[in-house]
């Protein structure tokens, strides 16, 4: 065997080890969450409210709180992201402005989420007087998932075959008509994929909502705009840090498994919709 072939073998082996390591970590995390979380989960766990500081009862309100924050964040973020994407793909002509906007969006994506929490709390919580509430949390999450949403929507629109755009332009459609009757109907699956990925990101977020949207106990469903909500993420965090009873720890694992399943379902759905995109252009 010559020298080059040996180097190739070594590199190949090294890369395989790295791959195996990261896979092993993933498998370990999944296995641990499933093994420790599954015993805690039954219908009562999912359908009852938590009692005795998480040591008893279930996670009904925590799950609902997480869903409220996620759905609220997407509802707020989607119009803005869609508008920003359409502005860049359909209306703006200057390459320089487009490039600047794109850099800004990518930078926003790189900001640590705790800073979103801090800045968001300053603006929504303090300045707009929403306090620690589901509204503050929703708005912060909305800003946080905005770049994810905007970039994936824009990519979906840009992936649209040029021939549809040409055909629409040649008919004399105005930009808005084009958006309504060509761009949106044709890139809908890509947009749905973006929304699901945004949701998954919001579901996994803890730092930004930890001190802006939730408190640990004594809260139910929000009755007003400024009520806090419990969430799965903070429930896990607090139980893992502070709980003493083994039952509470077990419940934290259970909540973890529920959250993981939620994110997994979203990502699976995103893959399903992404798989349908090529078919659009073939239709």
């Amino acid at each position, binding site marked *: 065997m010559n020298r080059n072939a040996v180097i190739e073998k070594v590199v190949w082996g090294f890369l395989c080890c790295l791959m195996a390591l990261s896979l092993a970590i993933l498998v370990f995390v999944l296995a641990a969450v499933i093994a420790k979380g599954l015993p805690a989960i039954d219908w009562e766990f999912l359908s009852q409210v938590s009692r005795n500081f998480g040591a008893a009862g279930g996670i009904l309100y925590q799950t609902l709180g997480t869903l409220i924050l996620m759905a609220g964040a997407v509802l707020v973020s989607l119009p803005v992201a869609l508008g920003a994407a359409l502005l860049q793909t359909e209306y703006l002509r200057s390459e320089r402005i487009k490039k600047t906007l794109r850099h800004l969006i990518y930078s926003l994506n790189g900001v640590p989420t705790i800073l979103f929490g801090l800045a968001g709390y300053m603006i929504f919580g303090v300045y707009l007087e929403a306090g620690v509430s589901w509204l503050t949390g929703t708005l912060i999450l909305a800003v946080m998932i905005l770049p994810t949403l905007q970039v994936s929507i824009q990519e979906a629109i840009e992936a649209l075959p040029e021939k549809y755009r*040409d*055909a629409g332009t*040649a*008919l*004399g459609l105005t930009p808005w008509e084009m958006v309504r009757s060509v761009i949106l109907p*044709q890139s809908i699956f890509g947009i749905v994929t973006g929304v699901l990925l945004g949701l998954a990101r919001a579901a996994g977020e803890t730092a930004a909502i930890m001190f802006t949207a939730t408190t640990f106990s004594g809260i139910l469903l929000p009755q007003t705009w400024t009520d806090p909500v419990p969430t799965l993420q903070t429930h896990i965090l607090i139980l893992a840090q502070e709980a003493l009873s083994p039952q509470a720890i077990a419940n934290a694992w259970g909540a973890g498994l529920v959250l993981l399943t939620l994110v997994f379902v979203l990502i699976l759905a995103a893959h399903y919709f992404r798989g349908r995109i090529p078919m659009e252009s073939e239709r």
Partner: protein
Amino acid sequence: MNSHPFPLAVECCDASVSYNGKPVLEKISVGIPEKNVTGVIGPSGSGKSTLLRTFCRMNDRVPGFWVQGQVRVGGDEIYADDVDVYQLRRKVGMVFQTPCVFPTSIFENAIFGLKRLFPHLKKEFSTKGEQALREAGLWEEVKDRLHKPAVTLSLGQQQRLAIARSLAIDPEILLMDEPTSALDPKSSQAVEELILALKTRHTIVLVTHNLAQARRVADRLIFLREGKIWEAGTTEELFNSPAMPETRAYLAGHGDFA
């Protein structure tokens, strides 16, 4: 039909086109007469498609696209500041190389533009749609399955549907960019026959690589080479007594490969 005061449907005076400073068309001066088929021929990369797209401002979206000189449609300068470009494109329709139908029914495709540009004509959609499909020679083939998806049609039928979609908004000029190059011979023939039928009411500008086709359907020819009009005249003139050696070489079938 309304009569047009100008004998020339499209007129270019010293029109130059460049992308990011790179010239594609240089000092084009040519007139395209009404209700005629004008063929645009020339080697690949000679600027045929660019010339065609210039007539309906299709390239406005292309970054760095720049037009100098004058391009007039129906006597009006189309690159002036106050031109309603959407209005212009309703007057100057365009059909492309790859047939493009929208993912909806055959009939919805036929009235795709009509429905969006003239929503107040709702009552006339069905008659106008039928009329456009008839004009495109497609009615007999599709009248029993108007509400089937348009993709179920053959490529040739899809191309005629695209033409019908354009005809439904009644353009004065129809630009066709190699409309048969993606089609089989039989479908190509149907499209050629359609072009000949359409010229009684429309001005047609046809870009084609197929010289036999140019000879069959075009009344006049424009020979483009390296971004310039090398020669223009009636089809007979160009085929029988070309003035330039390059035209002769191209028409003899060497031009595209030289």
